[in-house]
């Protein structure tokens, strides 16, 4: 076992010797430098391993005396993690920065080495003045190193940073000196004990001075201006080094100092400043035009979050390891992002269009780092945020949770805004980037891989072998992008089929809500991957991400814990986001999708936090919630799921996302992903609906709101679908509208309503998947989504036509196909509940659905065939096969809805007791309001059809087939420009009639939200004037302001 002291002594000795070693040549310097850092990694890693294995914390004395007489240092688990991180970052940074011209100066290497020493000293020391010394070492190292590579901007930023840093160190030194005077000791632990024993008079102002000094060192609002300039101006490789060393070390220093603040009036100030930084820095970041400046704001925000959590760690509400997870996450991800920023080299955000187009591995790295940065699973930040929130929830801090989540949403906005640009126009930028050096790439890849250490926690949270296996195969596929797309689709098909095989009969049963949804998911995935055999993959990583998506959904359904559920939910969100973004025009809609999904996720998270605050751990335990907790949890969950389901008011993301996502993915998005909020409503939110409703008493029933939201969604989206000129957009609006029906059915909260909703879940998967697949085939062959460029394709693509015909009949709910049963159930349920107006309203909107159904089939398949489409072939066979895989169950359901209804009835009975729906005889379904007999209808229709057909064929002369142009009108239709196309603006009168309700108030609302927050960000960030003296003034004013608040009490 090596003494931890050597972690400081060895690099320091090497730093002293380096100028001499350099006489032997650059290579010697470099080798010695790297060897030293490697030594540090090994020793720190060894210590971490031992400490994690239960070894005692190492105490190191200096001068030969115990504290408080000598300075002592400590190496516990937290310290070991940070030291290891520092060495790792420094090692990779050394690789990254090698070959730079500046490296020819040995002083650069010396400074890098001493910077590590400074950070480790800060981390390990337990002496306050020693802390000051190491703060100075870190500070001077930073000032010196920021001129690396970028002379002018680095100088400017470095100078400002130095000015504020010097003021900060004056404050810190004053604080330290006065604290010594008050307590007679400089040892932190000793001092904390003495301070808390008796809050000595006069300690308030002193602690404040120290606090403000540390706020400046920590780069918190309002003193973060120079630090942000530093990110902007300095070489990104240097900033990555700083993130791993100095930044963490200063944070940990402050964490140690919080012991001094216990019981003082500044604890709240720490919390508030931290959270303020988190929110404000994130807010200002959304308007940044420069990548590295944005990253600077992000760093400041993250530090704010960490500092915010510290008082809660002191009070025991949050575990230190939670904060540790966030620190590790931030370090790895931010360093990777900075290196990537350096490799790409473009400073302007807009210059990132199509970045790394030719280097998929780096793009994967970028995506992973961004996902980790914003705190998505399976990366460490997610677990950290989760546990932090749980701590806050248990401690009863709902408002902090709210603000934290709002700030996190802002983070989503700018990080995914960045990715949006990267995904944008990947096709158009093909020219080679500057040649990559392996040293640069190694760092990015290494840190990206390290980020995956959260996967172990994912395994614990999920406990689902199937899900993990699926996701693992997905990751392999992402990395093995050489495999051709169709072969990958085959792998996906096999994997999903194997999963289905394994789960068959255990989880995969219809008589259970989870089983039902799981069946829907796996079936949908199989159909889509089957179709994938016939279409090119939109992106190399497409199928891998798809499998990750499927795995996350399986996990979400199978898991029993709230954490597992939410982890699955978030992975589902980001993987589907990646899939949506993988089409040519998908980046922008995908961005919107992600932001709204992020918001939805945070609402759900808020709801789960209320539950966790009430002591609930598992999904099953939700039922134990009562009273106000039940109500608020229910409201948050329902709202979150509603947003994710694109319910009216939050629907604006959906049509674009559906329409612009790859043709292969849209069926899954519409058929399966849109059902997951329903799963959430059904399993998670409904569990607490009863106590929530009873808490409100008779005064008001919150399900009314949900019902009308569902109703408005159904109506509004249906209406908008009517006016679309684009086949996929039409179906997109339709999909959202159909989910509205399902929400409405669930909101009824009766056996019949649930039966209706669940029936519709299955049915919608079938017919909407069918329609999207058929349209995908048409788009693939025709090369356009516009109605005006289609027409008359019935003769060229008859199989697709039949698919669409069956699909729209089922969709419209016209008897005799399966859709009618769904509509019938819904109306019966609504009548039973006594929601008469909604019943009529839904009848109306489902009739409007006829319009777009007709539009779809008419504009694509009927009418005049375009000359250019004379030789169009039928869609590829895998696509057709996939479609008919969906047709069969539709027909089966049409004949005997009971095959689905019976298991649904059973599972609904589990929740509600018996249903009013009964079967009379074998085929007639009877509810309290009405009845219908599916087989009788079918027979009636078939008999009539056959009879009439026979009549038509026998009566009168044999009809002669004539060409499409042989019509009474003229015999010839001039080739029209698209606006004269027979199907252009088909329902124009309808549009005119509905003009007043179509003004787009909702999108205007969200546009306003975006505009206002951007305006605030724009106005607010002027706070950072760029003038060094102003920043110093802020420090003084901060002292005065806090003194005014804190000392007045």
């Amino acid at each position, binding site marked *: 076992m090596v*003494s931890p*002291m050597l972690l400081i*002594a060895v690099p*320091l*000795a090497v*730093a*002293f*010797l*380096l*100028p*001499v070693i*350099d006489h032997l040549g650059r290579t010697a310097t470099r080798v010695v430098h790297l060897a030293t850092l490697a030594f540090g990694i090994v020793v720190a890693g060894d210590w971490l391993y031992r400490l994690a294995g239960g070894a005692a914390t190492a105490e190191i004395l*200096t*001068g*030969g*005396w115990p504290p*408080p*007489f*000598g*300075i002592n240092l400590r190496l516990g688990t937290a310290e070991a993690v940070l030291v290891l991180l520092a060495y790792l970052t420094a090692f990779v940074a050394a690789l990254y920065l090698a070959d730079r011209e*500046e490296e020819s*100066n040995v*002083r*650069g290497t*010396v*400074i890098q080495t*001493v910077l590590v*020493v400074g950070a480790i000293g800060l981390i390990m*020391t337990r*002496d306050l*003045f*020693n802390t000051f*010394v190491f703060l100075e*070492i870190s500070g*001077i*190292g930073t000032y*010196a*190193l920021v*001129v*690396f590579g970028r*002379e002018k901007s680095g100088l400017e930023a470095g100078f400002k940073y130095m000015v504020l840093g010097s003021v900060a160190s004056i404050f810190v030194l004053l604080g330290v000196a*006065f604290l010594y*005077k*008050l*307590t*007679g*000791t400089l*040892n932190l632990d000793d001092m904390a004990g003495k301070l808390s024993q008796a809050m*000595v008079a*006069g*300690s*308030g*102002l*002193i602690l404040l001075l120290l606090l403000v000094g540390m706020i400046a060192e920590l780069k918190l609002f309002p003193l973060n201006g120079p630090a942000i300039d530093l990110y902007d101006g300095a070489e990104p490789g240097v900033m990555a080094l700083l993130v791993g060393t100095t930044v963490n070390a200063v944070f940990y220093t402050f964490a140690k100092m919080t012991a001094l603040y216990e019981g003082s009036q500044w604890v709240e100030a720490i919390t508030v400043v931290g959270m303020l930084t988190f929110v404000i820095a994130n807010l200002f970041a959304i308007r940044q035009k420069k990548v590295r400046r944005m990253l600077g704001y992000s760093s400041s925000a993250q530090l704010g979050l960490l500092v915010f959590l510290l008082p809660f760690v002191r009070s025991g509400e949050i575990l230190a390891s939670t904060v540790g997870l966030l620190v590790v996450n931030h370090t790895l991800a931010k360093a990777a992002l900075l290196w990537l920023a350096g490799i790409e080299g473009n400073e302007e955000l807009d210059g990132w269009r199509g970045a790394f187009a030719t280097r998929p591995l780096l793009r994967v790295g970028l995506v992973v780092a961004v996902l980790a940065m914003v705190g998505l699973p399976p990366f460490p930040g997610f677990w950290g945020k989760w546990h932090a929130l749980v701590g806050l929830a248990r401690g009863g801090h709902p408002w902090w949770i709210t603000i934290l989540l709002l700030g996190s949403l802002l983070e989503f906005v700018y990080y995914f805004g960045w990715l949006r640009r990267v995904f944008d126009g990947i096709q158009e930028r093909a020219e080679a980037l500057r040649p990559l050096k392996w040293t640069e790439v190694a760092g990015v890849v290494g840190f990206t891989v390290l980020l995956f250490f959260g996967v172990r926690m994912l395994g614990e949270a999920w406990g689902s072998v199937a899900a993990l296996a699926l996701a693992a195969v997905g990751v392999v596929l992402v990395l093995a992008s050489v495999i051709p797309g169709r072969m990958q689709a085959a792998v996906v098909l096999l994997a999903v089929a194997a999963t289905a095989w394994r789960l068959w009969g255990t989880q995969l049963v219809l008589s259970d809500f989870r089983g039902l949804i799981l069946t829907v998911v796996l079936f949908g995935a199989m159909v889509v991957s089957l179709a994938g055999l016939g279409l090119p993959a939109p992106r190399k990583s497409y199928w891998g991400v798809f499998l990750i998506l499927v795995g996350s959904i399986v996990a979400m359904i199978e898991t029993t814990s709230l954490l597992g559920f939410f982890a699955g939910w978030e992975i589902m969100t980001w993987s589907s986001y990646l899939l949506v973004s993988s089409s040519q025009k998908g980046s922008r809609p995908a961005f919107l999708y992600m932001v709204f999904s992020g918001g939805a996720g945070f609402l759900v998270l808020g709801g789960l936090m209320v539950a966790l605050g009430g002591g609930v751990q598992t999904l099953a335990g939700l039922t134990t919630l009562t009273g106000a907790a039940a109500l608020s949890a229910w409201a948050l969950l329902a709202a979150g799921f509603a947003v994710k389901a694109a319910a009216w008011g939050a629907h604006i993301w959906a049509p674009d996302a559906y329409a612009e996502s790859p043709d292969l993915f849209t069926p899954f998005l519409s058929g399966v992903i849109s059902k997951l909020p329903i799963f959430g409503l059904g399993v998670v939110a409904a569990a607490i609906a009863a106590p929530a409703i009873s808490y409100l008493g008779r005064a008001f029933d919150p399900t009314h709101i949900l019902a009308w939201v569902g109703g408005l969604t159904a109506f509004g989206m249906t209406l908008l679908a009517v006016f679309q000129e684009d086949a996929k957009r039409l179906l997109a609006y339709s999909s959202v509208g159909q989910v509205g029906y399902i929400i409405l059915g669930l909101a009824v909260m009766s056996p019949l309503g649930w039966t209706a909703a669940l029936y519709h879940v299955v049915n919608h998967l079938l017919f909407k998947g069918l329609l999207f697949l058929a349209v995908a085939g048409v788009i693939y062959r025709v090369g356009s989504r516009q109605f005006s460029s289609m027409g008359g394709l019935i003769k060229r693509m008859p199989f697709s036509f039949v698919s669409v015909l069956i699909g729209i009949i089922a969709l419209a709910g016209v008897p005799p196909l399966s859709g009618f049963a769904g509509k019938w159930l819904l109306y019966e349920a609504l009548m039973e509940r006594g929601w008469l107006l909604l019943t009529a309203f839904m009848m109306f909107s489902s009739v409007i659905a006829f319009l777009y159904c007709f539009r779809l089939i008419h504009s694509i398949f009927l009418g005049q065939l375009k000359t250019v489409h004379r030789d169009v072939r039928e869609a590829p066979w895998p696509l057709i096969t996939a479609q008919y895989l969906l047709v069969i169950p539709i027909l089966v359901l049409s004949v005997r809805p009971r095959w689905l209804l019976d298991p649904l009835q059973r599972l609904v009975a589990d929740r509600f007791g018996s249903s009013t729906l009964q079967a009379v005889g074998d085929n007639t379904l009877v509810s309290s309001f009405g009845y219908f007999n599916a087989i009788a209808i079918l027979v009636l229709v078939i008999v009539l059809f056959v009879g009439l057909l026979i009549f038509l064929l026998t009566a009168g002369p044999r009809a002669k087939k004539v060409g499409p142009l042989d019509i009474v009108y003229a015999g010839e239709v001039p080739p029209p420009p698209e606006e004269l196309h027979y199907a252009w603006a088909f329902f124009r009168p309808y549009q005119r009639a509905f003009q007043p309700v179509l003004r787009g108030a909702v999108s205007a609302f969200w546009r306003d939200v975006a505009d206002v927050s951007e305006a605030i960000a724009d106005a607010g960030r002027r706070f950072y004037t760029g003038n060094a*003296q102003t920043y110093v*003034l802020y420090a*003084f*004013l901060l002292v*005065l302001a806090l*003194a005014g608040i804190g000392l007045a009490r």
Partner: protein
Amino acid sequence: MKQIVSFLALATLAVLLWNLAPIAMPSDLGPVASHYVSHGLQENRGSNLVTSVVVNYRGFDTLGEVTVLFLSVSGVGFVLRRRSGLKVHRQRPASEIITTGARMLFAPTVLFGAYIFVHGHLTPGGGFQGGAVVASAVLLLILADRDLVLPHAALGWLESLSGFGFVLAGVVGLVVSGSFLANHGIIPLGTWNRLLSAGIIPVIYVLIGLKVGSELAALLDVMVHAADEGEAHS
């Protein structure tokens, strides 16, 4: 406007400090200080308690301090590593008298500095003060002869080895008595008030003196010569 606000803010701050900070004198020494005062003599056998504190009790701080100096000299060199745009200032060559005088003064000054840091554990002064005096001797030479080229290699070796020696002394303490920079069991503490007493303290203070002296000399050298000579070290 900003100036006025700054002025007022600072004035308020000063008043606050004056009124609220605990500036009144305590009745007696704090616990740590009393320990140093009462046990310092036995434990380190040096008359100068400040030196005991600086080199032994808080020796780790001093190592950090030396590091700061080292780092800032490296930093100055690094910041000024490019000559482009730097103002080259030429001055008249110094007169013969000054040059000669400076050369004559050089040796006594260095000796004086050495005296200060060798006696650091006994009398006021020590490595830093002595080092500064040594550096001022170098300054004299630089002032006297602009074109003087310092023996960089020798200075560099001195700088590196003295720093390394300091760390090594600490590690020796670690090995011998399990505590970094410990002062017992390495060299006998000796008799009080002798030059060769107080254990390892004078050794370390001499190393510090050499380190600081060479460091400050290098600093002056870099500041003066950076532009017109380019890189001080290759």
